[in-house]
């Protein structure tokens, strides 16, 4: 059986991967489930998005 629960370290990695490509369905679902219950990873998700928005404006 595939593990349904992933660790924060795995979730961080998937958060990063998701910014560059579509995740396979299973991974995407496991990440979603993890974020639903993990405030720390949800916070990191928002911070990575913030970094991305800032990067798009860099120099302008």
């Amino acid at each position: 059986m595939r593990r349904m629960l992933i660790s924060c370290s795995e979730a961080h990695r998937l958060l990063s991967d998701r910014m560059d490509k579509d995740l396979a369905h299973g991974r995407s679902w496991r990440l979603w489930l993890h974020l639903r219950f993990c405030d720390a990873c949800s916070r990191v998700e928002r911070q990575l998005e913030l970094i991305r928005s800032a990067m798009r404006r860099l120099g302008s």
Partner: protein
Amino acid sequence: MDAGRLDRELAALRPTLLRVARLQLRNDAWAEDAVSETLIAALEGRERFGGQSQLSTWVVGILKHKIIDQFRRGGREVSVDAIAQDAGDDEVEQIFRADGHRVSPPLDWGDPEASLARVQFFDVLQMCIDRLPAQLGRVFMMREWLELEIAEICKELGITATNCSVMMFRARMRLRECLEMSGFGGESKT
């Protein structure tokens, strides 16, 4: 915009452009060249600047195109070797315990829009990118500043897809830590 005013405004943008170009190219002479070419192109193409957008946004767009063109022609963005094993693994791994939990929780950075409104945020962000190992910084800039697709970056640089995503992960984690250690979180709540 009259020519004299455009000249002055472009000259004023030069330091900002140079700083960003250096972060991407990691080479002062190449950055100088790219920025000079950009400013010349802006002067020559002044009639194409409609004034609807900010002058800086228009000029940064030209700079990005110049760097991307160079990269696609296989010019100065030479091969990236041995990056996968680049220093920095430890630093990222220290964020987590063996069981995959974080050693310390991430801080609350407060309102994202408020952070972006602060000039200081961009300043610190650039300082943090500069502290990344050169190859990591270049790949990160290609993805997040030049907005190239990850597949193109890996292909042009001859890096496997897996190594590429490992690099992006490490760069993002290090930047996040660096921003947090530089005062984002806590302070921004005021």
